[in-house]
């Protein structure tokens, strides 16, 4: 079964620091009302640059299905 990746945004934990928005290489994210929002999902390349620099675990890539060999 093929792994499917999903971009997850947890607005409850987002503090609106802009880090993910600024470091996204594909302009997938933006800031609205002090919270991150996904504005351009089709361009997301699941590079995890948002994930590794989000201080709040508010945005990350989830692997759905398949086997996790990590």
């Amino acid at each position: 079964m093929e792994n499917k990746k999903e971009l997850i945004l947890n607005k409850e934990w987002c503090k609106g620091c802009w880090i993910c928005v600024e470091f996204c290489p594909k302009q997938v994210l933006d800031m609205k009302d002090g919270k991150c929002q996904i504005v351009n999902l089709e361009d997301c390349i699941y590079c995890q640059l948002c994930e590794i620099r989000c201080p709040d675990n508010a945005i990350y890539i989830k692997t759905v299905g398949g086997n996790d060999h990590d």
Partner: protein
Amino acid sequence: MDASQLIQKYYRLDKLPHIWCPGCGHGILLNSLVRAIDNLGLNKDEVVVVSGIGCSSRAPGYLDFNTLHTTHGRALAFATGIKHANPNLHVIVIMGDGDSFAIGGNHLIHACRRNIDITAIVFNNNIYGMTGGQYSPTTPYGDLAATAPYGNPDSPFDICQLAKGAGATYIARGTAYHARELDKLIERGIKNKGFSLIEGLSMCPTYYGRKNRKGSAVDMLKFFKDNCIDKRLVDNNPQLGEGKILIGELYKSTRPEYTESYKAIIDKLKE
């Protein structure tokens, strides 16, 4: 394991979101620690995370390990008791720059000297954040702080140099920008049989950044990107290092580890 699984496995979800300010680098460093522990496959029951006082000290409360939030500066002394009493535990200490190098400076140099198998991670944001932005032993000369309204007349420590002089056997520096690299540095620190010190450069946009016009959290991360260079590159071409902050594995050596030396004494007495 992907991020969602890591969060599920290692965080105390009901304690999140954490108390740190928007853009605080501490959360990034904490995730590096979590990934390092996961990469090493440590048993959660055998991991103890100890902290002192300050913004950094809140970190263990969010993690699903044996966690101990102690008094200001004393985390390493508590940790020494834990490790010496039960050397099977993996003892990791999270400290701030004031916590570890001002009030806790004595404990730090002696933990280095003793080479006890503890991994210390300094969340260095160059300021006392919890109390409102006073200058710390790593605030650069001339910078502004709540207690340095005319510029800091004190000179800062180089944390890694100090640890080297004191005898730590693994020393590394990473940043919140270079988070993936930091995972590896922490991993190697935990693996080192001896005292490991990892300086994690963090950012405090709320106090240090604002007072010193360093811009937003994003700008402060970009500063790390533009001003840090891996030691290996500089080793090959020293010119590259001019005016830069060295990151990566800075020092490694081998010498007797405290709890092993003590065990040897016990074993010898049994003969």
